[in-house]
């Protein structure tokens, strides 16, 4: 039986040299396939064979998108690591990661205190609302005070500003 794609070292090596423009074009084609198969699946009579075919094309396009997402891409060499304190800011964690931060979420000031007490070397900045940051200044890390309700772009700027 021939080896399947992805099994050999050679396959992995090819993945590393795929140019970004190729991935961009492939992504665009998949966007079109995904988009039109979604429309087709919605328009064709429910339960029919044609709708099933459209659903299969859609599933294949989705899988292909995931494969593209798996292609290794260079990560920033120096990422800012932030301990984000308080459940109210949890909603921002994913968006802050999109903006390039490495986020660890502490649900409360107490949890953050426990983590910082054990080690401060895992983070560069501690961020939270004024209320959650009270008492966290003793650990020697820069604090970024975030207004409640601020969006991720604002919080990202405050964190980078606190780091200096």
């Amino acid at each position: 039986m021939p080896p399947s794609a992805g099994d050999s070292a050679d396959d992995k090596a090819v993945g590393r040299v795929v140019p970004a423009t190729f991935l961009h074009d492939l992504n665009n084609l998949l966007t079109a396939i995904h988009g039109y198969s979604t429309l087709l699946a919605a328009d064709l009579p429910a339960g029919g064979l044609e709708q099933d075919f459209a659903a299969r094309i859609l599933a294949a396009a989705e899988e292909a998108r995931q494969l593209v997402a798996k292609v290794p891409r260079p990560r920033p060499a120096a990422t800012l690591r932030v301990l984000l304190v308080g459940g109210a800011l949890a909603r921002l964690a994913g968006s802050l990661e999109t903006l390039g931060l490495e986020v660890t979420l502490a649900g409360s000031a107490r949890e953050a205190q426990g983590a910082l007490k054990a080690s401060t070397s895992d983070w560069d900045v501690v961020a939270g609302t004024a209320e959650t940051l009270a008492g966290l200044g003793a650990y020697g890390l820069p604090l970024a005070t975030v207004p409640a309700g601020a969006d991720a772009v604002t919080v990202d700027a405050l964190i980078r500003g606190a780091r200096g």
Partner: protein
Amino acid sequence: MRLLIADDHGLVRDALSSHIERQAPGTVVVGAASVDEAVSALRQDRAIDLLILDLRMPGMNGLDGLQRVRTEFPLLKVALMSGLARPDEIRGAFTRGAVGFLPKTLSATELLSAIQTMLAGERFIPADINTADTADGASFTRREREVLDYLLQGRSNKEIARSLELEEVTVKLHVRGICRKLGAKNRTQAVMRAVEMGIAS
């Protein structure tokens, strides 16, 4: 609602237009294949509510195209769209006044919701575009990756803490981060999901 989608791939423009016009009846979607075409369209049609600008197309030159549009049309809402943007490019777009970043992996419903968010005056930043379904584990922090390796071995928080010379509370934070990134409700589900996705040392 009037939208201008600037993308050099006609298939992408058409697919997005079809989706948006279907999902939001009454919406008019205009297309452009370059920054020059987008600027011409904007000069002729002052009623455009939102410009969606592909990051990699003729005239963009990094984020220069966005800057050009923002300079000539400072009141226009502009969103950047890309399948492969780097964090510094996304941050740069917001610094230049973009109101949103739209990954091409958004579903039609999510795209429309994002457009409505931006038109309502808020900025749209999706959760980490590299987080979900990245089997290489690149989106995990170094600590999360270490903790995940121990989770895959069935170790308890206490054992992991001892091995990594951390406090249990710290391990708990990293387990939570792993669960969030894998979309898992608990550590058992996280391990199952990691195995399904082929994440292993």
